[in-house]
């Protein structure tokens, strides 16, 4: 088990204000949930602030809040997941290339267009010269980074890992994917996400970070016990097998799970997979979901872990995420099951460290 000894989430919810989000959920009526951003002047020198793209700002401020929470100045290694990374800078550069007809194109957006620059920015700000990795594979981006973090800490070469999941909504990307039905029409309340019987979901974004170590301490929130990914399952029964095998490998069965946190996103084309699991494998479990809070994005499972860790520490479940009224007991094991368009499936087990 890895211990979460620091965390931070910049999200469309008031997640930077302690436990406020347990009481106060922000309602949106757009199909695009954008982050409530911190005052970036606290995180950057004025010159750097002027130059930095929005995703670099989101990334570094999320990382810094997490490091402060863990009372660590320089992380020992950095693993990052981002699905769309710095694509906005790429697009800006592409527009400029076309506008300028490939002559005298200003290079600044190109410099910030490399995906690795989010993690590189964190390395530069902290002076961490060790291991630095960026995974970018749709809804496996954060899971891959987490798996790497688990390996790193088992290898005992580094004392801690700063693990992050960062994605921003990019207007052009949003528009193009809206064209092929990935998003709902605007005007739906995020709090009614599952009641709107239509195709598509609502877009989201976030910058979520964890400081992971091999040992627990005073500031430990919870432990990450295991992660498993699988792709393109042929049918529902193979998903059930994956879930059961995953739990079995961890020495657990479904009844040991105190809360199942599901990636339901309101898309009628794909949510039936979750409902199938809710009726079968998880029929006796307390069930919850989270994407009405953060929207759908490639690294949203990082937000789910953040939520799980907060709930385990507080031993409380915010009303807004609950899907059924199974009685609440002690929150020891939370299972997160997420899938992206029935292609990238992931299982994450978060547990109490006590």
């Amino acid at each position, binding site marked *: 088990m890895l211990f979460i000894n620091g965390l931070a989430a910049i999200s469309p919810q008031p997640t930077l204000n302690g436990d406020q989000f347990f009481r106060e959920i922000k309602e949106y009526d757009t199909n695009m949930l954008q982050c409530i951003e911190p005052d970036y002047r606290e995180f950057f020198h004025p010159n750097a602030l002027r130059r930095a793209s929005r995703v670099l700002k989101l990334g570094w401020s999320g990382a810094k809040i997490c490091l402060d929470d863990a009372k660590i100045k320089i992380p020992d290694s950095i693993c990052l997941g981002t699905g769309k990374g710095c*694509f906005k800078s790429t697009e800006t550069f592409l527009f400029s290339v076309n506008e300028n007809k490939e002559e005298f194109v200003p290079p600044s957006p190109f410099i910030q267009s490399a995906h690795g620059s989010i993690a590189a920015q964190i390395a530069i700000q902290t002076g961490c010269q060790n291991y630095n990795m960026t995974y970018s*594979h749709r809804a496996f981006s954060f899971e891959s980074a987490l798996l790497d973090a688990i390996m790193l800490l088992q290898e005992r070469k580094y004392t801690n890992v700063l693990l992050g999941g960062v994605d921003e909504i990019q207007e052009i990307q949003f528009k193009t994917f809206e064209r092929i039905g990935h998003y709902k029409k605007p005007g739906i309340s995020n709090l009614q996400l599952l009641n709107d019987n239509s195709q598509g979901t609502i877009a989201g974004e976030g910058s979520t970070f964890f400081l992971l170590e091999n040992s627990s301490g005073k500031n430990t929130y919870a432990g990450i016990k295991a992660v498993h990914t699988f792709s393109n399952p042929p049918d529902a029964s193979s998903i059930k097998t994956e879930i059961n095998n995953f739990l079995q490998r961890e020495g657990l069965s479904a009844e040991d799970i105190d809360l199942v946190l599901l990636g339901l996103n309101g898309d009628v084309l794909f949510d039936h997979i979750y409902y199938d699991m809710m009726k079968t494998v998880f029929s006796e479990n307390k069930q919850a979901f989270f994407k009405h809070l953060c929207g759908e994005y490639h690294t949203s499972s990082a937000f789910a872990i953040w939520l799980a860790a907060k709930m385990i520490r507080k031993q409380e479940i915010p009303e807004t995420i609950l899907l059924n009224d199974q009685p609440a007991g002690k929150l020891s094991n939370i299972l997160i099951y997420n899938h992206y368009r029935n292609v990238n499936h992931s299982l994450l087990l978060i547990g109490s460290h006590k």
Partner: protein
Amino acid sequence: MGEKHGHIFVTGMGIISSLGTGVPEQLEKLRAGETGIGPIRNLETRLAGKLMAGEIPFTDKKLARLARVTDTKGISRGALLGIIAAREAMKDTNFNDPQIRTGIISGTTAEAMTNIERYLKDFLSNDSKNEYIESQDWGFSTEVIARELGIHGYMSTINTACSSAANAIMTGARMIKHGLLDRVLVGGTDALSKVMLNGFHALMIVDPESCKPFDRNRQGLNIGEGAAYLVIESERTARKDKILCELSGYGNSNEAYHLTALSPDGDGTAMAMNNALEESGLHPGEIDYINAHGTGSLNSDLSEALGLEKIFGKNAPLFSSTKPFTGHTLGSVGALEAVFSVLALQNNLVFPNLNFRQPMEEVSIQPYTGNTSGLTVNHVMSNSFGFGGNNTSLIFSKA
């Protein structure tokens, strides 16, 4: 997770680059000292005629035939290149054994841009190119390759710019060592893109002529395209008669210096090389050949040469950059050069650093230009350094 697993073996490899299609064609051109860099013919860009590139001389249609794809709907050039290289790498692989857990980890950086730069106007105004929308993504090519090759296990994609593929190889090896997988298809793919060509051009680090790595008068790099994959396996599953060599070391570091430039003192590149040597248990003196990153850009070559002197002293082993052969294929380049490293071991060869004339003033080492016979090559180091100061070194050894 399972117990530590010892050695990692390379049991297959495949490649397509401007040097040719398949491993034998690469070797032939490398031996003959023939470059793949030339005028740009396929890519639509106003820079064609001004800049040269290591472009693969096939249209996408021709690549689709070579790749034998079942479904070309919405496909990207990078995915096609990847399938061609992956098929060659896995041609002798037995997929039917469910006991062998097989995954894919790919590195790519320019891939997501090739379709968006062609079709963005359509994406934003009409439905004619909708099939390509989902290819604006780094995981796309990996998922297409997995589908075409029938890989159902773990899949992931790394994007750390020019060290992406080297990092994919390293991550695959670590997953085997941790007992998470038995066999991984590792490598990378990147197609030539207008965005990348213009980006490096705007940074003024493209040599209008052929690149001249480690030369005093170097002016920058040439962009290329290509894909390469290795099959790496655990000791338990690798068949003895299939073993090409061992992946004996790997190491990564980050400079924390600048978003695009390497630190000028060579500390960052030295750290990656040192980490790889530590992992392999080899002494610097045991390395016979270094396939350098050597892009031909002013800053990067100097950092690498200084790093080499830090680790190996003034008597560095033979080293050369093969980028004057292929161009800099960005996200996939670490995989192309991993294949070249295996070829060096198999054939006791060191490839010449083309276009080198005059040594750099700041260092006393110079690259190999190809006048030595009767070499023995037992251990090869391959360096890949990326934007953001993400540095990775790999070591391949005779098994």
